């Protein structure tokens, strides 16, 4: 998947996550801010990495502001942001 522009999906309400995807001219960078970072930070990072691999996305900067979203929410928001960025 080739990203053409910056895109955002999600909100910052409780139980949701807001994900910003920025095409990046260098090695990928993932920044996570989460209400449950201590408990689930690693798992969120693993999930994001696996979705990036599945969609063949590289050289991207991803900013995550998580308000306690469940995995399927994070996955849906990230995929939406990626598709928007690829338009």
């Amino acid at each position: 998947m080739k990203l053409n522009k910056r895109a955002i999906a999600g909100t910052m309400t409780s139980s949701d996550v807001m994900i910003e995807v920025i095409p990046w001219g260098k090695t990928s960078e993932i920044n996570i801010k989460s209400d449950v970072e201590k408990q689930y930070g690693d798992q969120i990072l693993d999930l994001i990495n696996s979705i990036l691999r599945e969609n063949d996305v590289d050289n991207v900067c991803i900013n995550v502001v998580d308000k306690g979203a469940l995995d399927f929410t994070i996955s849906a928001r990230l995929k939406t942001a990626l598709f928007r960025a690829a338009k």
Partner: protein
Amino acid sequence: MEDRYDINELLKEKGTFTGIDKSKRKKNKVRSLKYVIDALDIKDGMTISFHHHFRNGDLLADMVLELLDKKGTKNITIFPSSLTTAHDHFGQYIQSGLISRICTSGIRDRLGEDISSGMLDTPVIIRSHGGRARAIESGEEKIDVAFIAVAHSDVNGNANGFEGVSPCGSLGYSMVDMKHADKVVVVSDLITEEITIPFSVPSYNVDYVVKVEKIGIKEKIMSGATRLTTNPKELLIAKRTADIIEALEIIKENFTFQTGTGGSSLAVTRFMRDKMIEKKIVADFALGGITGHIVRLHEEGLVRKLLDVQCFDLDAVFSLKNNIRHFEIDASFYANPENPGCVVNKLDVVVLSALEIDRNFDVNVMTGSDGILRGASGGHCDTAAGSKICIVTSPLVRGRIATVKDKVLNIVTPGSTVDILVTDHGTAVNPLRKDIMALLKEKKIPIVSIDTLVEMAEKIVKKPNPIVYGDKVVGVIEYRDGSIIDLVKQVI
């Protein structure tokens, strides 16, 4: 018969009347806070107490601590009935050396984080409202000076919490302090020559009367915890809870109840009201932190008496002032376990909330899922132990945090006193209560095991990383009888 008295001795001892000058009789004087703090000579090792009826709008504790800090006072114990966001910045008084020990019911937000990080060398003592009253009455905690924020006082210190410009309602927690503290200081922004009637603080308990510009912010009494919910999950839980209360045949003439704060437990009241009207039943009393929702039931004639240790909103404050059977009670009468007549023992049912509850039905209302102090013991374990039936209501998960889990991080209320858990994913009954289990089955109320709920929750949120604790103990959680039920560890 032999004369028992030597009358001359008596005259010498007592003195003879020599006349009286009315103009020279003792008179109280209204003082400034600074004058009183200087006069009291608060020093190392002393304990000063506050009450939290102004909740987030409390101004007094900070006024007192700021003056003490300026004087360079060190090593005092603060012993408030609870701490709120109004006390968020108290870390600065820990760092300055003023506060060396804290005893409280609640601790949250920034101060909770400061304490959890290990800022205070001595662990915080967490007590329930009943446990605090017990500790004071038994002499386990000695209060050197009690500061009591009141809405209206006369010049002699007869005072109440519900008149004036800054009312907070019931003064229930401080009513214990004022009987046992060495010195009692009443502070208000309304002080009159005319006697205060009715008064909750009698002047004979008061040593100093202090006038300040503003004693508290009444609008901040009501916290988010007392809003009536529109959240469908919480409404579902509330509806289920009311159905269970009905099925257990609790709603009978002269029944008694307490519904705590928190979305669903408040909404239970609303559903119970419908059932009471339908069955033409009147409750004898409602207890606790009183809210406007409970006041409405009282004014509609559905609840005869309100026993009020703390007002949770201004409707309750207004009702305490105007309704004669809305009655102010002290914390010992409310919940002191050593007082056999304490009124929690007369509760038919209590509905409580929880931050966490586990397979043993042990409940945590003190620390968040990250192990950091962000709650209050309150009357949770007191009412659970006293009531005939204790129902805990909680969503199965909050965001990504499981509420029902294998093991709570900290125990405040032991599972042996918790009878039923109602969640949005099902209701579990404590296996110790076979009577309840049988009755609910007979009434066809669906029940699941607590283990099923734990597994459901874990499936939704997945297993979290364990919390990294330090070695230091930052909090000691006392059960209401004074024994230690759990320790709170430093979080790194």
